[in-house]
């Protein structure tokens, strides 16, 4: 609705039709607190809340918006995303949670991003679609990760409505005294089938993963997609690799027509048992090089389980960016820099793009802040660190306190004890005075560190500093720390 949306504190309900009656199909939180609930006749709701704001439900527009949301999730999270009307999204996170820093962080990030755009969402991850569906709606607050193998246990206490069954069946089960999924499991299956049909048993089996539950992934018709279907199902890794190469060839020609390069590719495998498997690879820069894209895809083939065979493969450039031509080779061979973009993409797809970086200088005197991570393909500006003072090869994650014997203020210590080993200082250099960044942090207004490089009898060199307020440092007081090791 955008800017025309009513403020969140409005007691708002959406109204739909059930035959001749007008009923409430959705309620805002303030209206819910006033006692209105979904399914209530509108006349009753008006009687409860006199200043109720009503709007007509628009199921078609809702479905379209849900599809748009699914396409957004497809671009950001995983190659297999499906809209689950009326109000859900199904995301197959297999193999992608790693890239988002784990399942918990994936879900939190997802919910936060949705919240930022005004959508209150709950999310759950579980081994089966049924369990995740139930956990997201009945357990998530606002996120829930069901441990692998713990699905049956987790949902046992939930009401039978969590099984995605129609309300009449749920009401019938409650009539029988079967309130929870756990209670439902305890009774024999056959009489239930006789009374409620096979749908109930199917939902239970889907919950346990005994019966597979295929999802129909959303596809953006504007994306460049190529497809190959096979008369005979294929399964061998070499065959998959060969067809992946052919698909990449077709895709690259499609991309070329649009002047695009792929930033992200999704290769979907439709299995004969109607299961879906997917590979997603990304690149740091737009690429239209067949060899490189094929290599990236083939590197991940081992993660695909072909099951009883694959009957179709779909390759989509989920993210594509304009690719301008570039002169490939100079006249003088051997002069140009080696191109490592291919290697960077390959490794980034294995271990996650955030784990691959270059370290670039930051203008900061505080040593631990003088380094920051940049993209491995970021242009090299040739900047370096000032090299007036030697820097240690290994820096401790946080400085460790040491006990020192210092003879004179402003002099290096004569001896120090670090990790239980006492070392005599034979030679030393310093002090190098580092002031706190008072213009960034108030706590560092008066902080001073005096760094010394010291060498012990064996020739081992350490980077120690005395920390304290400026006047204390002038008097030679302050605590000593070891921050790094030279050699």
């Amino acid at each position, binding site marked *: 609705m955008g800017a025309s949306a009513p403020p969140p504190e409005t007691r708002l309900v959406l109204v739909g039709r059930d035959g001749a009656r007008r009923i409430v199909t959705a309620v805002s939180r303030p209206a819910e607190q006033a006692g209105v609930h979904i399914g209530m006749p509108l006349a009753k709701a008006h009687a409860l809340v006199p200043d109720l704001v009503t709007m007509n439900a628009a199921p078609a527009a809702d479905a379209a918006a849900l599809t748009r949301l699914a396409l957004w999730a497809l671009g950001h999270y995983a190659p297999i995303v499906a809209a689950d009307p009326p109000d859900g999204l199904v995301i197959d996170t297999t193999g992608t949670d790693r890239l988002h820093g784990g399942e918990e962080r994936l879900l939190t990030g997802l919910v936060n991003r949705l919240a930022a755009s005004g959508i209150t969402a709950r999310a759950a991850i579980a081994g089966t679609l049924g369990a995740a569906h139930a956990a997201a709606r009945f357990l998530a607050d606002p996120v829930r990760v069901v441990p692998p193998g713990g699905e049956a246990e987790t949902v046992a206490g939930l009401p039978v409505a969590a099984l995605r069954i129609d309300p009449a069946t749920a009401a019938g089960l409650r009539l029988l005294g079967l309130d929870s999924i756990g209670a439902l499991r305890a009774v024999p299956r056959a009489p239930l089938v006789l009374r409620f049909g096979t749908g109930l048993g199917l939902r239970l089996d889907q919950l346990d993963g005994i019966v597979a539950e295929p999802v129909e992934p959303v596809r953006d018709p504007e994306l460049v997609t190529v497809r190959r279907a096979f008369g005979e199902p294929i399964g061998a890794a070499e065959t998959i690799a060969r067809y992946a190469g052919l698909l990449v060839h077709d895709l690259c020609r499609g991309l070329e027509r649009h002047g695009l390069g792929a930033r992200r590719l999704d290769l979907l495998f439709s299995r004969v048992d109607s299961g879906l498997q997917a590979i997603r690879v990304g690149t740091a820069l737009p690429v239209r090089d067949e060899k490189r894209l094929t290599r990236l895809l083939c590197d991940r083939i081992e993660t695909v389980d072909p099951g009883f065979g694959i009957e179709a493969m779909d390759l989509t450039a989920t993210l594509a960016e304009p690719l301008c031509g570039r002169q490939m080779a100079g006249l003088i061979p051997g002069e140009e820099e*080696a191109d490592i973009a291919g290697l960077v993409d390959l490794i980034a797809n294995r271990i996650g793009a955030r784990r691959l970086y270059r370290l670039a200088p930051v203008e900061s005197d505080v040593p631990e802040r003088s380094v920051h991570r940049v993209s491995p393909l970021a242009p090299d500006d040739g900047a370096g660190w000032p090299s007036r003072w030697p820097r240690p090869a290994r820096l401790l994650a946080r400085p460790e306190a040491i006990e020192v014997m210092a003879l004179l203020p402003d002099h290096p210590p004569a001896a120090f004890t670090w990790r239980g080993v006492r070392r005599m200082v034979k030679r030393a250099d310093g002090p190098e005075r580092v002031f706190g960044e008072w213009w960034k942090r108030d706590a560092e207004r008066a902080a001073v560190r005096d760094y010394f490089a010291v060498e012990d009898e064996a*020739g081992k060199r350490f980077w120690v500093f005395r920390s304290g307020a400026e006047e204390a440092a002038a008097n030679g007081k302050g605590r000593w720390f070891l921050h790094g090791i030279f050699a």
Partner: protein
Amino acid sequence: MSASAARAAVADLRDRIRRLDGRAPRDRAALSFGVPEIDARLPDGGLALASLHEVSGGGDDMTGAAAATLFAAAVAARTRGPVLWCLTRADLFAPALAQAGLAPGRVVYVEADDEKSLLACFEEGLRHGGLGAVVAEVARLSMTASRRLQLAAEAGGTLALALRLRRHRGQADAYAEPSAAVTRWRVTALPSAPLPVPGLGRARWRLELVRCRAGEAAEFEVEAADAEGRIALSSGLADRSPAARDGRLGATA
């Protein structure tokens, strides 16, 4: 037999040994240390480029690791092209590498979750062929893994440096197991030469060539890497190492 004929015969024998090792005789490109005494001890006249080399730190604590790191950085600095640095724990301080001659723009760091994916990234970097050197901080390196890496280094023509770090005191010596590496080095800090004024001079290392394929073990006392990644034989003390004096196979034959 004249000296030149003997040299030719030795060179021919070396080629035959290399062929038996499964290496083509042509890939003899080597990275010279620029120190004749050290280069003479290595069969290729320097660190063979398309090969795996192991570097470990002497001593039982993190100081050895730091010296080994600087030595590896100095070697990598003298190659051409980008450098891939694979690690599992990011306690490396990049300004120190820059001071050993390895400019920050040349190094791409890969932070792997575990040793297994670290070795996979190591191997991938070697096979790429466009890199100057690949450095990997590995704790354990089995014979099989080192053989794979050696083959990858040969295939890609890239210098491979396995930095064998001891993370804690109880860990066994990195060189207890055999490996397919062409050379194994151990770097230990030595007391630096006293200066006439208070302060710290250039650091000194004891550089041990623990193992060298088709060569002999040796030991040197060197001045630590300078801003271009060059090491130098420790002045005045060079003759103290008996290993550095004998040898020079080609000249004495």
